[in-house]
């Protein structure tokens, strides 16, 4: 008599637990013909990422476009890179207010990672940075400056305000774009801002016309700790790449100056506002789990009491206790279901083909070709061609390169797949 209701309740709860947290969107997928047409002019190495961006839906689209853009730059296909970054930035710039996926991510019962990826501040800054570098190649200094200014703006929210908008390299590059556009006054303003934020940052000389950018090491990684993985953390990959860069141009050896560490940018931001929401979700999960455990124990005691009363022939009392036990059991199951459904996990998707550090140097025109040496201590661990590319007007030249060890990127972005059971 008592076992039957409990079995029914258990079955109901199993059915509840197996209910998907969110109904899968029914987006009509593109045909293979459409996909192939889209991929036809993309660089080979970036095609799997462009495919993911096209077919994977909104949730990871920006992440895959960022990764595809950078792989396209590595492959020297700047047109595809610009296309990918423009699409990513269009979504980053879009103000997500009353957005369904963003609203859903605030719910106690849905993971933060359900939201459409726009990246953390340092990732958004880097998307603008790369777009700015591409504009410098085109000689479009107005839009290059706008991109670097936007990169700096992405860094404006920091818990500790001394770290707000402290991406000094972006001010240097805004100044560089102004210098190349023939506006030394505006360039000087940006250089002053850069020096205020970082006293050690190297400022280009007025006669410099060549900008050399290099990147070393692997991206900082996101991970989560806390009882329910509700705290977003960053892991540094400093030391995974070369420790220095030398630009050999003409007869000159120019040492790369430190631009920025992305781990520093990521980790000095402090807590996010969404962390408060995740903490609330974790607290809810903890509280409801405790309530479920307490109610379960009370239900067990009531059932034992009902059995005892039944054995003494007190059927009326046994029934009352059985109902009480049933009520407590139902309450416990409800609490357990709520606890199980709560998803406080932090979103740990990240842009994994970013570098760890940015290095740069400027010089007057010294030659058309040279070599970039990536050093680890005194040893040269890799070299790449240094070929500053003049802008269409011939005002300034730019060279952008990366430590070749940083090129590799898996097809699937880290932590980008939503696991239903966790």
């Amino acid at each position, binding site marked *: 008599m008592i076992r039957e209701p409990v079995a*029914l309740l258990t079955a109901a709860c199993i*059915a509840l637990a197996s209910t998907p947290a969110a109904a899968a969107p029914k987006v009509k997928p593109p045909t293979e013909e459409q996909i192939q047409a889209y991929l036809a002019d993309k660089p080979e190495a970036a095609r799997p990422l462009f495919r993911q961006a096209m077919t994977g839906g909104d949730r990871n689209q920006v992440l895959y476009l960022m990764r595809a853009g950078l792989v396209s730059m590595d492959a020297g296909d700047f047109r595809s890179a610009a296309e990918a970054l423009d699409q990513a930035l269009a979504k980053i710039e879009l103000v997500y207010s009353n957005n369904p996926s963003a609203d859903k991510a605030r719910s106690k019962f849905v993971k933060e990672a359900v939201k459409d990826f726009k990246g953390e501040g340092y990732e958004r800054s880097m998307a603008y940075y790369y777009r700015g570098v591409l504009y410098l190649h085109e000689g479009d200094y107005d839009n290059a400056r*706008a991109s670097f200014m936007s990169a700096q*703006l992405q860094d404006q*929210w920091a818990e500790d305000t001394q770290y707000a908008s402290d991406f000094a390299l972006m001010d240097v590059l805004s100044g560089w774009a102004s210098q190349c556009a023939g506006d030394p006054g505006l360039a000087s303003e940006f250089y002053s801002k850069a020096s205020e934020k970082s006293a050690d940052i190297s400022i280009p000389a007025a006669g410099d016309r060549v900008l050399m950018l290099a990147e070393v090491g692997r991206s900082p990684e996101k991970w989560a700790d806390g009882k329910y993985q509700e705290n977003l953390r960053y892991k540094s990959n400093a030391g995974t790449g070369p420790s220095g860069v030398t630009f050999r141009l003409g007869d000159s050896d120019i040492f790369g100056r430190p631009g920025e560490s992305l781990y520093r940018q990521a980790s000095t931001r402090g807590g996010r506002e969404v962390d408060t929401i995740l903490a609330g979700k974790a607290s809810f999960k903890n509280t409801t789990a405790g309530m479920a455990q307490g109610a379960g124990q009370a239900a067990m005691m009531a059932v034992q009491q009902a059995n005892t009363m039944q054995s003494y022939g007190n059927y009326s009392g046994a029934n009352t206790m059985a*109902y009480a036990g*049933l009520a407590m059991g139902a309450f416990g199951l409800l609490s357990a279901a709520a606890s199980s459904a709560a998803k406080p996990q932090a979103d740990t998707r990240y842009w994994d083909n970013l570098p760890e550090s940015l290095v740069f140097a400027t010089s007057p025109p010294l030659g058309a070709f040279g070599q970039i040496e990536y050093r680890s201590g005194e040893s040269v661990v890799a070299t790449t061609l240094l070929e500053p590319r003049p802008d269409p007007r011939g005002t300034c030249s730019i060279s952008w390169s990366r430590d070749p060890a940083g090129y590799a990127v898996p097809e699937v972005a880290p932590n980008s797949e939503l696991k239903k059971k966790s």
Partner: protein
Amino acid sequence: MARRTSCRVWLVAVSVALVAVGSAHAQRRDKSYDKGMKVQELDPSQRGPVSGVGIESQDIIGMTDRMVRDMLSNPQLAGRATAPRVIVDDQYFTNESSQRLNKRIITDRLRVNLNRASNGRMMFVGREYAAMIAQERELKREGVTDVGTTGLTKAQAGVDFRLTGRITSEDSAAQDGSGRIHRFNQITFEMVDLESGVIVWSNLYDFARVAADSVVYR
């Protein structure tokens, strides 16, 4: 028997409640765009469904219409006995704002609307086509082609005035936890006399916008 029946009714109610509570949260997603969206015609002079704090189509239309009206009401530009020759392009129209933008969308619209509305009171010179014109002039003078129907001129057209301008912005972010970003945008337009350097006409268009991303992005 009666007790057993009442217990079953109670259990069914609890089960239904459990399932309802558990699944309610999954049903709130706006699915209206899940199957994509048919192409829709939008009025570019109105704010669209996708917007931010920067310059948008309605600003471009609003500002260029206003500048065209103002220039045409200026006697130094549009009231001369001989129509002045003017260059309206993006060469000296700079973007110093934090917004990436194709400036030509503004200058092209200005030139086209001015050209149509001025009705001969201003003449527009396409300096960006100078190389193309020089090539055709050479073909005519070398006899590779005939002279056409409008005749030859001694040189390409000299210009009296040129449009200059600047797009600037000032961004600030609220540090009160609201995540609000505020942007003041200012676009200035000036017509410069290319002989004397005198600015014969100026105007500006400005606006400010504030917005905040969802808290999950802050």
